C-alpha cells in the first residue's frame, strides 16, 4: 500500500497552505499586505489579503470567519425565547431588527396575530434602530478618511436616541425587547412625547453632520467615482440594503414586501436611491435614509398616540412549540436583507435555523471591487461597504 500526503485547502485557505505559497506567492514580486484581522479600518476582525503593486491593489480577498460564533448551530439547542437573545447579537448595530426577524418567523409559523399596538411600536423601534445604525457609519466613514469630527457629531445624536431606547427596553445595544407575539412590555408613560422630541433633536443634528462632511471638497474628491458597483455586480453577489440602492437597485422590502406596519406608511416611506454606485452615493444614501427613517418614526408616533389602549403582547404557553414546517422570513435590516430560514419539526427548538445576513453577501463583492484601486481607495471602499464583522462571521 503506498501512502502519499496531500495538503488540501479550499477557498481562501488554499492560497495559504505551504505548497501554494511557494508556488504562487514566491513567483511574483508584488507585496502581500494583510489588512487585518487587527487593523483600524476593519471595525473588528475582517481580514483582507491584498496583493500590491506599489500602492495599487492587484488582487484582494476577504478572509472571513475570525469571529464565527456558530450562531446557527446554537439556535438549534435553544427555545424560541432564548433564540432572540442570540439572534440580536450577530449584527450588533441592528439588534432590534435582528430580533424582529426571529419573532416574525415564529409568529408566521404559529399563524399568530400580533396586537396592533405592538406592530406600530415595533415599526417605530425598528426605524430608530436604523437611525442608530446609520449614524454609526456616518461617523465612522469620515473617520476612516481622516476627518475626526463627524463621529463626535454622530455619536452625540446616537446618545440621545440610545437614551430613548434605553428607557423603553433597558438596553443600549442589545434591546431584547421583542417577544413572540409582541413586545416585552408596554411603553413607559409619556415616552412617546420624549421620543418625539428626540426625533426632532436628531433631525436638527443631522444638518450638522451633513454640513461638515457631505459637501467637503476633499471628501468628494476621495469618494466620487471610487469603487463603483454596477447593477449586475449587485445582483450577482446578492448585495442589498443602502449599498445596492446606491447603485440604482431600487429594492426595499419595506415597500416591496411590506411587513410590520410599513404597508400603511407608503406615503412617508421614500426609498432612497442613487445611480452612481460609488462611495459618495453610498454615503449620501445612508444620509438620506436617516431622514426618511426619522419621518417614519414620527408617523409611527402619531399612530401610536392615536391608538386606543390595548395589549402589546400575547399570552404565550409555557412551552412554545412551532408547528412542523418551514418558513423564510426576511426583513429590511439597516445594512440590507436579513433572512431567517426556520425549519421546525414541531419541537420547542428549531430543527435548523439558517441565517442570511446582509454583511456576508455585501463584503464578498470586495474581491471584484478592490483590484485596480489604490490602498487609500481601499479604505474609502471598505468603509463605504458598511459592514459589521459579526454580521459577516455570524
Amino acid at each position, binding site marked *: 500500500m503506498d501512502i502519499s500526503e496531500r495538503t488540501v485547502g479550499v477557498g481562501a485557505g488554499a492560497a495559504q497552505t505551504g505548497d501554494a505559497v511557494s508556488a504562487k506567492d514566491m513567483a511574483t514580486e508584488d*507585496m502581500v*499586505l494583510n489588512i487585518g484581522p487587527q*487593523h*483600524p*479600518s476593519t471595525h473588528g476582525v475582517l481580514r483582507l489579503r491584498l496583493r500590491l503593486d506599489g*500602492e495599487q491593489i492587484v488582487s484582494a480577498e476577504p478572509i472571513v470567519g475570525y469571529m464565527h460564533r456558530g450562531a446557527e448551530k446554537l439556535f438549534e439547542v435553544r427555545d424560541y425565547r432564548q433564540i432572540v437573545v442570540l439572534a440580536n447579537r450577530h449584527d450588533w448595530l441592528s439588534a432590534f431588527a435582528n430580533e424582529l426577524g426571529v419573532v416574525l418567523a415564529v409568529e408566521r409559523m404559529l399563524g399568530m396575530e400580533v396586537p396592533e399596538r405592538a406592530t406600530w411600536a415595533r415599526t417605530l423601534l425598528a426605524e430608530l434602530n436604523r437611525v442608530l445604525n446609520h449614524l454609526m457609519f456616518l461617523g465612522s466613514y*469620515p*473617520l*476612516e*478618511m*481622516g*476627518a*475626526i*469630527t463627524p463621529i*463626535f*457629531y454622530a455619536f*452625540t445624536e446616537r446618545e440621545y436616541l440610545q437614551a430613548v431606547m434605553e428607557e423603553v427596553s433597558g438596553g443600549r445595544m442589545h434591546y431584547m425587547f421583542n417577544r413572540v407575539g409582541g413586545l416585552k412590555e408596554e411603553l413607559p408613560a409619556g415616552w412617546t412625547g420624549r421620543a418625539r422630541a428626540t426625533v426632532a433633536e436628531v433631525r436638527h443634528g443631522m444638518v450638522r453632520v451633513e454640513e*461638515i*462632511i457631505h459637501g*467637503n471638497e*476633499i*471628501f468628494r*474628491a*476621495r469618494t466620487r467615482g471610487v469603487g463603483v458597483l454596477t447593477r*449586475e455586480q449587485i*445582483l*450577482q453577489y*446578492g448585495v*442589498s440594503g443602502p449599498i445596492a440602492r446606491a447603485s440604482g*437597485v*431600487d*429594492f426595499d422590502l419595506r*415597500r*416591496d*414586501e411590506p411587513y410590520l406596519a410599513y*404597508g*400603511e406608511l*407608503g*406615503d412617508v*416611506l421614500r426609498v432612497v436611491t442613487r445611480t452612481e454606485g460609488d462611495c459618495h452615493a453610498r454615503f449620501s444614501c445612508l444620509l438620506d435614509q436617516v431622514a426618511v427613517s426619522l419621518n417614519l418614526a414620527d408617523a409611527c408616533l402619531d399612530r401610536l398616540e392615536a391608538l386606543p389602549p390595548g395589549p402589546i403582547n400575547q399570552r404565550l404557553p409555557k412551552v412554545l412549540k412551532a408547528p412542523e414546517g418551514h418558513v423564510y422570513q426576511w426583513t429590511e435590516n439597516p445594512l440590507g436583507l436579513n433572512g431567517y430560514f426556520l425549519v421546525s419539526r414541531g419541537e420547542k427548538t428549531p430543527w435548523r435555523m439558517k441565517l442570511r445576513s446582509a454583511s456576508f453577501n455585501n463584503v464578498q463583492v470586495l474581491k471584484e471591487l478592490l483590484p485596480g484601486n*489604490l*490602498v*487609500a*481607495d*481601499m*479604505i*474609502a471602499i471598505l*468603509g463605504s461597504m458598511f459592514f459589521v464583522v459579526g454580521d459577516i462571521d455570524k
Partner: protein
Amino acid sequence: MSTHVLAAEDLSGFGTDPWWLIVIKVLFIFVFLVLSVLLTMWAERRILGRMQLRLGPNRHGPFGLLQGLADGLKLGVKEDLVPKNVDKWVYILAPAAASAPAFISFAIMPFGPQVSIFGHQTHLQLTDLPVAVLLVLAMASMGVYGFVLAGWASGSPFALLGGLRSSAQVISYEIAMALTFVAVFLYAGTLSTSGIVDAQERLWFAVVLIPSFLIYMVTMVGETNRIPFDLPEGEGELVGGYHTEYSSMKFAMFFLAEYVNMSTVCGLSVTLFLGGWRAPAPISTIWPDANTGWWPMLWFIAKFAMVMFIFIWLRAAMPRVRYDQLMKLGWKVLIPVSIVWIIVVATMRALRNAEATTTTWLVVVGAGLAAALVALYLWDRAAEKRREAKETAKEQEFATLKAKPTAGGFPVPPLRAAHYGSAVRDALEAPRPERGTSAKEVTGA
C-alpha cells in the same frame, strides 16, 4: 539709471555674543520648543474637544494643562519593544535623526530686536546667516531621513509604505515651499531672517505677496504631515505609518519631531510673511514703543499661536486627501503657480528698478493679460478635445463589450444563470404599482 537699493544686509550684530549668552539662548530655544510642544498638544486637544462637543483633557493640573507632561511620562515608562526583524542600529538611530534637525531650524528664528541682557546688547535670536532660510530647508530635508529610515528599518510593510510616502511628500512640498520663499527673497533682497523682518517694517509680505503666502500655508501643512496631508501616518490605511513599530521613548521622539516641525513652520511663516516680531498695525500706530525692548517677543508668540491654531482648526474640519491627489496638488498646482508668480514678481521688481514709465507698465501688464487669455483659450480647446476623445473611446469600448462581453479580458459570469433568477430579480423586473394609490385603498377599506 540708478538701481533701487534693497534692504541692506547688516549681520555685524551677530556672532559676537559671549559664550554664556549663547548657552542662555540655546537653552531658551530648547525650553521654548519643548514647552510649545506641550502647550500645543494641550491646546490642540482642548480646542478639538470644543469643536467636537466634548471637553478634552481636564484632569491633570489646572484645565488639564499637565496632560502633555503626563503623556510624556507615560510614554517614557512604557516597555520599549524592538521587533525581531528590525535593522537594529538604523531602527534606534531613526527617531534621533528625525527630531534633532527639527530643533536646529529654530536657531535662526528672530524673537525680537536688540535688547540688553546683563548689560550686553544682543539680538533676540541665536544667530543669523546670509542664507538663514536655506538652513531651515536643509534641516527639513535632513529630518526626512529619520522618517525614511524608520520605515525601512522597521521591517513592516505598513511602516515601509509610510516612510516612502513621507519622503516623497516632504520632498515634493519642499520644492513648492522653497519657491514661495523666492518671492520673499526678491522683495526683501536678503536671505537672512532678521533682514526679512526688517524689510516688512511697513507692510507684511502676507499682504504684498498673497499668492506666496497662501501657497506657503498649504505647503507647511504638507511639510509637517498634518491633516489633510497626514498620509504617512494615515491610521486608516497604514495603521501608524513609519512609526507603527515604535514604542516608548522612540515613539515619543517622533511625536516630538512632528510638533517641533510644526513650531518651525509656524515660526517661519511669522518671520517671512507676518511681519516677524513686529506688532500688528493698530497696536504699533497707537503705541510707538511696541516694537522695542522685550515686547516684540509677545507679538511673535501671539502670531505663532495663531498660525498654530490654523493647524488645529484644519485637523477638526478636514478629511485626509488621497496620495495621488496630494502629489497632483503639489506638482501640478502649487509649483506651477509659484513659478508664474515668481516671474510676475521678478518682472515687477525689474520694472521698478528701471523706474519704468506708465506706458511701459501698461504695455507689460497688457501683454501679460493678453498672453494669459491666449493660454486660457488654448487650454480650453485642448481640454474639450481630450474630453471628446475620451467619450468616443468609452462608447467604442461599450460597443465591443456588448458584442463580446469577455473582450475586456475579464471573466464575466452569466447574468441569467438559474440561481440568479430569484425572487429579488423578479421583484425588480416586475412593474410596480403606484404606492400612493394602493395606500389610499388600504385606508379606505
